[in-house]
């Protein structure tokens, strides 16, 4: 692992950051608009 660690770990780190970011952004987007729609529909 030692020889190629400088390539392997960044590849896994970038994947975790991008996939985690997509997951968080998707859930927050859905939650925000659900809340907003429910507020407006209640009026």
């Amino acid at each position: 692992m030692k020889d190629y660690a400088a390539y392997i770990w960044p590849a896994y780190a970038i994947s975790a950051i991008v996939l985690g970011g997509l997951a968080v952004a998707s859930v927050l987007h859905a939650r925000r608009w659900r809340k907003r729609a429910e507020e407006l529909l209640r009026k």
Partner: protein
Amino acid sequence: MNWAPAFLANPERFMAFSRWAAPMFGVIAVVLGAAGLWLGFHAPPDYQQGLTVRILFIHIPAAWLCEFVYACLAVASFLALVFRHMLADAAAQAAAPLGAGFTVLALATGSLWGRPMWGTWWVWDARLTSVLALLLIYIAYMALRASLDDEVKAARAAAILALVGAVNLPIIHYSVVWWNTLHQGASVMSGKLAAVYLWPVLLMVLAYTALFGSLWLVRIRGEVWRRRAEAAALRAARA
């Protein structure tokens, strides 16, 4: 067999389905991903690539997903264009950022594998260039949708762009056959991959696909809520 179009045609049924399907796909993704990573990190070094073979366990799924997501985007765009259905358009819009994310991962992890194996971060060969073109198409799709105030016009223009951009999919897929590329030809489906590497790859491909399924449903739900909120705000403003 007409249950799938029924989901597309009925937003209420889609919302009820996606409410349990999205978390279910998420759990499947986590379980398969954990199994794939465990097998991947216990796989022996490849006789040529050494331990950089571990990068392929995350590169191949990202590369598969960047094409698969675009195919989903193109089919949804076609349905939105022909049937003018709100859910199909929401599905196309929701797929774009996910596809762009997977394309960035395919390019980044490929580059991190290429540097020690090929001796370079990047070459302008047909496979890499056509995948870069795919990323630019995703970006153009999102930019086009964001640039027009009229959402109906934006959706139609973006759908046409998505269908034109679908020409790139067979180019990506067959680039390693049609041209002499530094990127190797198909290895997963060729049967040449040893089982010790094939299983982690397959599990990770399934995990990434399940993750996409989960996030796609979540984003479509978000789009449906956004459109409901905007319609309610418009009604309130007119009242």
